[in-house]
């Protein structure tokens, strides 16, 4: 090959073609059949702030948000929920599908574990509630205080894991994060993706 321009044009065209095939085409398909599932609500303000915190703390690097088909993996049997569909992510930006399951899938954690107290204690001291866990604790989302002020949320810790004196109080950040986790609930019924020869649109 002697023409740099030929290589340049060939290389650029091939990448454009690839982009068309694996980004543009599926996007057109998804958007032409886009439907917001009836059970899906936009995130509340608190959950949206919590989601931003989830992004900034990098929870995504250990937790996926995409239960898979029972034919591929027993995600449903673990209580992680039905296989997710594109509509489930309508309000998600950035997407948080994730690529690792160092910890469990969280797309339906709000349905699986709806207790605020559990989540707060778990974020403060993961191994207090989940022995053997390798999740880091997030002490900077909490404050230690001798006398909790009125209206503050005190973290309930199991005996032996609580500080000797005073109490652990959740900051607004912790409450927002937990609110987001609670709103991770995609248990409403959905139509499945169109199957070959099936009834989908």
């Amino acid at each position, binding site marked *: 090959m002697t023409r740099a321009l030929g*290589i340049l044009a060939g290389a650029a065209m091939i990448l454009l073609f690839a982009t068309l095939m694996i980004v543009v085409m599926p996007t057109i398909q998804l958007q032409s059949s886009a439907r917001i599932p009836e059970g899906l609500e936009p995130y509340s303000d608190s959950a949206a702030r919590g989601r931003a915190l989830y992004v900034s703390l990098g929870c995504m690097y250990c937790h996926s948000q995409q239960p898979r088909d029972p034919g591929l993996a027993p995600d449903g049997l673990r209580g992680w929920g039905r296989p997710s569909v594109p509509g489930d992510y309508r309000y998600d930006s950035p997407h948080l599908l994730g690529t690792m*399951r160092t910890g469990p899938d969280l797309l339906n954690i709000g349905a699986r574990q709806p207790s605020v107290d559990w989540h707060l204690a778990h974020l403060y001291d993961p191994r207090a509630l989940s022995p053997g866990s390798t999740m*880091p604790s997030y002490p900077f989302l909490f404050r230690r205080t001798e006398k909790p002020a009125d209206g503050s949320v005190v973290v309930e810790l199991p005996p032996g894991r609580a500080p000797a004196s005073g109490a652990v109080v959740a900051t607004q950040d912790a409450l927002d994060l937990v609110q987001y986790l609670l709103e991770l609930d995609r248990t409403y019924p959905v139509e499945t993706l169109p199957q070959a020869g099936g009834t989908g649109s």
Partner: protein
Amino acid sequence: MTTAIAFLLAATFVISVGGLALLVWALANDQFTLGPGAASTIFADGEVGRIEDPATPAADREQMQREREDDAVVEPGEDEDARRAEQELVSRREADASTRVPVLWWLVSSLFWLAVASVLGVVASVKLHVPEWLVSEAALTFGRIRPAHLNTASYGWASMAGVAVGIWLVPRLFKARLVGGHWATLGAAVWNLGVFAGVAAILTGRSDGLEWLEFPWQVDVLLVAGGGLAAVPLILTLLRRRVQHLYVSAWYLISALVWFPMLFLTANLPNLFSGVEQSMLNWWYAHNVLGLWMTPLGLAAAYYMIPKIVGAPIYSYGLSLIGFWALALFYSQVGLHHLIGGPVPTWAVTLSIVHSVMMVIPVLAVAVNHHMTVARHWRLLIYSPTLRFVTVGAMLYTAASVQGSLESLRVVNAVTHFTHYTVAHAHLGAYGFFSFVLFGSIYFIVPRATGREWPFPRAISAHFWLVFLGFVVYFWPLTIGGWLQGLAMLDPDRPFMESVEVTKPYLVARSVGGTLMTLGHLVFVVHAALVLGGRSARSAGATLFRRLEEPA
């Protein structure tokens, strides 16, 4: 659906016609003819048969040359009149020197980021088995250290070292002095600023939240500008080249130059997509940045270094043409295999799996070329640390690619997806292949760019064995641990916590391996600092080792 099909048909038509036109043009203009001399473009007349390895001491070089002549393999182009080479070697020496400032700037920066990335990597690794370590500050949490490691390693170390090697290759490939090198020097400053700002953004919680695309768009602008500036001398020198044929390394460099900005710009446009669509864009980018940015840079270096060190043209030059275009065609569409089982259209994922498997073609083409060229002169590996690094890198390229093809199959992916197995695989490619090739290339380049020798040959050996053994200790436990983790997750009768417990000893081993690798990097960085600080002997006048005897 109908719109999509209509669009696909129209697009296929337009693209096929365009591709056909390009093919006709290429045939009419003789673009695919690779004459017998084409593979020897990188040699001066009469230079084939002479080894070049600036990183070995003179005595070893003599021994290498003797071994080379004992190989009893006569390469095409060998036994020409060696005296004709001399004039060309003088101008090559000037050309090498012309890259000095920009190459050293990119190189020194990359070494700094290598050290930073290594430390961040070890910290992240230890955190996975000592979860209560360094948890008091949000900036030190695993979810921030890990992306900081990834970004410093890929955009700080790998990309900057790759660009340094690329800039250094330019005059060698085009046989002309580097033109406009100061633009690249400025580019290094801007790029560094970008990586600094990007890592600061991640550590302070301002990440974009997409894997491989964590830097906020304001920072991305800096990388685009820095990369654009680095490309200026490539284009200017290309326009003044004194060779008719473009050597295979140049194909890879030119296309990497087109691909990276296309990928990086598109993927970082803010608010283009959300939800599932964004995940497809994310993985289109993240796999292409490996396949169409790092891989071409690494292959460009390997395609130059291997034949140059052993003094023999590449084994089958025709194969390299197939390897190049097949890589472009297939690698560009593999990204969605990261979303197997995910909520994206199945046909698109299947398309990516097919392309992942098709990658075997370019990988074999490259493997035959690299391995056969070395195999004919394998004893040179004993003397040349440069060749050892590059050859191991090329072998791990084959391994990583074949592993990647297998991993994309649904049966295998069902086990390995979401596990540490994938992390081991990523390091086999980005570290085993790309970083090893870069290490070797840097050992070759620094004496040529600075005119100074490496002062301690033993430090080079120490670097090699530390990172090689370190990587073995890194890779195998993580691979095995990841596989066991995947099996545990697939068995609904075992609680999830078992998949966590089973990995723990393997994660400890990974930290040990990572620490060894980091030690190797520190040896490397200190050694390079000694050369750059002027603490080593000036290299001898001849840029090329002479033949011991004139050919009969």
